Structure formats: C-alpha cells, structure tokens
C-alpha cells in the first residue's frame, strides 16, 4: 500500500511536467496590433469676391501712377502726373480673394509676375503691376486638419497712367494661384 501510493505520486508528477511542457510549446507565437491612418484633404479653391478698383483718376501732362495697398481699407498713393479727384475718388478697393480647403494646412500664393493690361475706349490701355498680398507669399487655412478651413487675403497693385491718358472706363483681369505647400 505504501509503495503503491509512491507509484501513484510519481505518475502524477510526470503527467504534471508533461502538461507544463505542452503549455510552453503552445507559446510559440505572438500578435501585435498597430493603427494605420491617412488624411484625405479637401481640394484647395480660391475665388475673387472683391475687384481691384483704382476708382477715378485724373491724368496729367506727364505719366504717373496710383498705388493701392493690400488691405481691406486700402490706401491710395498717387505719384507723377496722376491725381485723385478730391473726395470723388469713386470705388477704391484692393482685390479680395477667398481661399477654402483643408483646415490647418499652409499654402502658397502666387501673384502675377508681369503686368496686367486693362483696356479702355478706342483700344487705349493702361497697365497694372507690382502686385502685393497682405499675406505675402503664403497663408494658413483656419481650423484644424480633418475639417474645412478658409482664409481671405487682399491684393493691391500699381496702376500706370500715361500722359494725357484717354478718358473712359478701363477693365482687365489678372489671376492669382494658390497651392498647398
């Protein structure tokens, strides 16, 4: 009886070790999990909401310029033979551009590198150059990544008026380009 119980105990011990051994062999793999992310951004758009308007200018016997600053309340500076007609300057505004896109992203602003031509009566022309932006060459859309963002900027420029420039209304177009950095 005493010997039998010893045998039984040994059997239990051996089976116990086998069980532990089997458990260790099952620990042969491990799984790790990571996240993956991506951000699809909104396309960037720009549209003009206010025109660049130099208002009424009076030409002189010599050429001159009228320069508008890039601001919501633009400041006009006349030079040379050009003057503004007192308080009757008409509508004088810097151009305003509205940018929409992905919040928080920065973008570049490209202004015309060369002069834009505006045309009046009988094919008379003037030119506008020295375009400036109140944001300089880059902007940042409002808000944060993952939501819509927007920003507006103003553009000023310099109108070149010839000596005895023909009277009339002059119009033309110029383009600005925005692009995500």
């Amino acid at each position, binding site marked *: 009886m005493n010997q039998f119980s010893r045998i039984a105990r040994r059997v239990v011990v051996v089976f116990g070790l086998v069980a532990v051994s089997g458990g260790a062999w099952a620990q042969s*793999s491990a*799984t*790790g*999990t*990571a996240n993956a*992310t*991506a951000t*699809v*951004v909104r396309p960037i758009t720009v549209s003009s909401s206010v025109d660049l308007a130099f208002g009424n200018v009076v030409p002189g016997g010599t050429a001159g310029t009228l320069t508008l600053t890039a601001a919501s309340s633009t400041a006009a500076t006349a030079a040379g033979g050009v003057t503004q007609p007192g308080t009757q300057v008409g509508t004088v505004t810097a151009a305003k551009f509205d940018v929409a896109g992905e919040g928080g992203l920065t973008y570049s602003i490209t202004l015309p590198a060369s002069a834009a031509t505006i045309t009046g009566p009988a094919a008379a022309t003037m030119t506008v150059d020295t375009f400036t932006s109140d944001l300089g060459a880059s902007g940042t859309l409002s808000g944060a990544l993952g939501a819509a963002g927007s920003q507006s900027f103003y553009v000023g420029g310099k109108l070149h008026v010839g000596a005895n420039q023909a009277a009339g209304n002059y119009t033309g177009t110029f383009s600005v380009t925005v692009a995500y950095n």
Partner: protein
Amino acid sequence: MASQGCAFRPGRPVGSVALALSVLLAALAPRASAQTIGAVANLSFGSFLSGSGGTVVVSPAGARSQSGGVLLLGQGPGTPAQLNVVGTANATYSITLPANNTVTLSDGNGHSMTVNSFVSSPPATGTLSAGGSQSIRIGATLIVGANQAPGGYSGAFSVIVNY
C-alpha cells in the same frame, strides 16, 4: 500484485523526478519563450489629395510615393509602423503580415479605403538581438478612390510572429 509490479524502490523517487525535470529543461532550452510584440509607432499614409484616385505607398524605410491622380502633401508626410519584438536572445522567428483586402481604414462616416501589399523590414524572417529584441518596420499600399471623401481615416492591423 501491487508490490510485484513495482519496479521502483522506496529510496529512488526523488531521483526520478530530478531526471524528468532535466529532460524537460533540455527540451525547452532551444525554444523561444516569453515573446511579446508591441507597436511603438503607427503606420501613417500622411496627407494627400485624392484627385482621380490611385495609391499611396509607404515603405518600411519611411519613403512615401504615389500613383495615379493622388497628390501628396509635403506638410503631411507618411511614417512606417514600428513594432518591437521581445523574446529569447538570438531566436529566429517568422513574420506574418495581413493578407490583401483584409485591412480597411474608415472615416467613421461610411467611407473607407483598403490597405494592401504590407511589407516589413526585416522581411519574412527576423532574428532577435543578443539582448532579445528586434524592431520591425512595416509599410503598405493604400488604395485611394477617385474623389475619395475628405477626412481622417483610421484602422488597425495585426502582425503575427512565430517562433
């Protein structure tokens, strides 16, 4: 019956248990144990415009490229996932990455993108250092639809290491 069938002597049981233990330890010695694998960096495809659709590829080394109409934005670069494997020193192991069409990223608004072609560095098989660890870097290819809905997309994927 019991006394006749018993081959063991009363004074030997301790000896046989010790023998069994040494056999067990010998069997376990070449096996790796206590492996863990944990993510220390997530896989990011960065920011991009979907355009007419295409792919965004992030390599295990972290290089990002595109195909099709996708436009990558420099201000949202991609990064590979990094997982650390810890286990027995110098142990070799195999790496099992997700199969194609099993991992998707969702924006939570009913839009999704599929992640395919997972690649790892080291590829297929790794070897733990003398200190018992190794870093795995993982890249993949994101399938972007035409005019994919803007937003932040996320999802999870699993990596299995076998010893």
